């Protein structure tokens, strides 16, 4: 646990020492802010629901960008040799890195709290769906970052990691479309519906916190980080 924190702290320092964190964060907030204000001006409803669903789409691109350098950069620069010959387990390295990205993501999300303040000043929003929506976004973000960590472990090249990451999360996000085509009762349809990152999100947006969905996102995190650890381990055997 302590080792994980040591890795995460260094990683956070690296985020803020490079322009990536600022650029990606600013880009996300600019686009999200635009959608929020445009939607608010048009709908005149004190709700975050529409803003959230737009933020989710942006996140599909932003999260892989945040995660792309996590492992790939260590492999490119050779610092991975330091980590892998230190008395630290491979999973601690992977989880520590994911944790750093998650902290950055939470900080980014905290800024969108401003939108809620705006709603509170202008109207009378229902806070239930807002809170559950944030919970859903945090869970989704964790899952996206874990998938990004996985693609980052696969290559030494940050750009390749980012492209792979975006492709992977977008595919998982829209896999619900297969369900629509093959019908919800077929086995294939049920499978693609279940692994779809978006299907599990709608309840959160409506104000419902269902443990199955929480478990789903947490399993994606655990599964992706487990695979990332195995990928890192296979580097040793090559």
């Amino acid at each position: 646990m302590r080792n994980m924190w040591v890795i995460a702290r260094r990683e956070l320092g690296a985020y803020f020492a490079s322009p990536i964190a600022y650029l990606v964060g600013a880009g996300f907030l600019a686009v999200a802010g635009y959608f929020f204000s445009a939607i608010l001006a048009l709908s005149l409803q004190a709700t975050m629901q529409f803003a959230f669903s737009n933020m989710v789409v942006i996140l599909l691109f932003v999260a892989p960008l945040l995660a792309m350098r996590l492992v790939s950069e260590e492999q490119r620069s050779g610092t991975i040799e330091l980590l892998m010959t230190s008395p630290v387990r491979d999973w601690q390295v992977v989880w520590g890195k994911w944790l750093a990205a998650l902290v950055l993501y939470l900080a980014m999300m905290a800024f969108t709290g401003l939108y809620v303040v705006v709603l509170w000043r202008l109207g009378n929003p229902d806070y239930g769906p807002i809170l559950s929506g944030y919970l859903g976004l945090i869970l989704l973000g964790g899952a996206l970052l874990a998938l990004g960590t996985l693609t980052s472990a696969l290559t030494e090249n940050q750009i390749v990691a980012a492209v792979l990451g975006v492709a992977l999360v977008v595919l998982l996000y829209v896999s619900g479309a297969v369900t629509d085509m093959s019908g919800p009762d077929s086995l294939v349809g049920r499978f693609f519906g279940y692994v779809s990152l978006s299907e599990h999100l709608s309840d959160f947006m409506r104000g419902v916190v269902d443990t199955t969905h929480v478990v789903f996102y947490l399993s994606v995190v655990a599964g992706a980080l487990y695979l990332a650890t195995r990928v890192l381990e296979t580097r040793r055997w090559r």
Partner: protein
Amino acid sequence: MIEVENLTKHYGDFVAIEDVSFHVPRGEVLGFLGPNGAGKTTTMRILTGFMPPTDGRATVAGFDVFHDSLEVRRRIGYLPETVPLYPEMTVEGYLDFVAQLRSVDERWDSIDRVMEQVDIVDRADDLIGQLSKGYRQRVGLAQALVHNPEVIVLDEPTLGLDPKQIIEVRELIRSLSGERTVILSTHILPEVSQICERVLIINKGRIVAEDTPEQLSTRLEGAEHVRVTLDPSADGVAEVLGAIDGVEGVGQVGNGSYDITCALDVELRPILARRIVERGWSLLELRPVGMGLEDVFLQLTTETEETREPEPAVETVETEEDVDTEPVLEETEVAREEESDA
């Protein structure tokens, strides 16, 4: 302290090291010598737990490098060939990170100690990315020493440094020996004779020789050579000098130059000089021609004899050396076979 038995590593079809065995007692400084791609880095990476061997086993301080990897890693300080540095960190921040990774007690004392040891105190707050190559190498060394390890593994520690820095690093390594066990790899030969108590010469993934630097030179040499240059007008030199007790052969290598093969452990130079002067010949030059580590190295790492430089023209010398060197190579060959049988 370090026991390596029949270590083998394959990358796909490529054999990086094959059946490598050696032991390093506590406190010894061992040098790995070999051309690039000989398997030095692979061996070190296995010892430090970076990668597992395909076959064979290695223990450090009694712990298996594969099964007790974390215990081994706690006891080793490792400087990889590419110094693992984060350019965006300060020197102090980086050493703090490494010290935390290795759970160093009284962290700041240790960090101050190593910064002093490698002389980077005045660069403590500089960004690593802005340091010169020499300073980076020192930060790399500091990283390997911060947890006061029992075993230090240094992969090409003087690579890319200027002569002054090389001397400083060598002195630092020498100062580390004593309680600590040091393994360092290099392809710079003087380095080995200066720092190491024992040398392992690796070629194509196999150990081809193992001894002290001095022993290695003499063992392979088998005899000493003295180069004598006289005024070309001198006659019958070979007969006169060849008659001296202890001279095993005289060969002419040039106009007035002779190569004299002397038995080991006999100092013949005063006698040679006296005999020459007695004859009234003008002595222009008289010097010992040692076989340096370079020659040993070349001889061991190249199969052909043509690359042997010193006395290609002298027939007697050539044959003498063939006789002397081959048994050594065979010995190691035999030793290895015995090990694999057992």
